[in-house]
């Protein structure tokens, strides 16, 4: 991607992360070349209460690796270890 490229991302929060972010869904515009790990760091800076949580990230409804690159239009879910059952 070029220097001027931007990505539009949708970020979803659930349970404890929704409480920490004070939001369930945000839209984010950012420069290109963003990894999952980097996004998590940026979000934690934006919402410091997230730093107390061990975050898991899903991209487009699939669990994502920390090193995965994000793409324009990706739907990102940020949550803690699941506790259903």
């Amino acid at each position: 991607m070029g220097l001027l490229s931007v990505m539009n991302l949708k970020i979803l929060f659930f349970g404890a992360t929704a409480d920490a972010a004070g939001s369930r869904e945000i839209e984010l515009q950012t420069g290109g070349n963003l990894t999952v790990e980097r996004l998590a760091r940026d979000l934690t800076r934006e919402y410091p209460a997230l730093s107390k949580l061990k975050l898991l990230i899903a991209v487009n409804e699939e669990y994502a690796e920390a090193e995965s690159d994000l793409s324009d239009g990706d739907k990102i879910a940020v949550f803690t270890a699941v506790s259903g059952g």
Partner: protein
Amino acid sequence: MAFAQTTEHSLDFAELTTGPIDITSVARRVVPPTCGATVTLDGYARGLTKDKATGEIRKTDHLVYEAYEPMAVKEMYKLIEQAKQQFEIANIGIVHRLGKLEIGETSVVISVAAPHRKPAFAACEWIIRELKRTVPIWKKEVYADGEVWVEGAE
């Protein structure tokens, strides 16, 4: 059942619902004519919870379950596919409840029908373990004096 979602292929199903879950109907829906038994795991809202940190027993007033719904259904179907590859079983039904649950109400039912009992037990046990590890659903325990989102083991 605002959050209910169903996708069906063969007699398998994975659903989320905000209404009460009837164990009998889940167990019956997975039954093919050649099988003689189903094994069913049902989890329900516990009245007493042990605090993992302090070991203290707390009285829970009610539970609230929340899910990343489309991904949760996808992940449940993945478990169904994986279980059917690993175990000699016929059909699997999984229903997880969302929203507010009173103590004693059923939160999850997993029913496995199989020609033979042994793989049905093994598959059901495997699915509940994996569901608690991978399916994006979260539980909030609400007490008289507060509430906490339970964090899973992994």
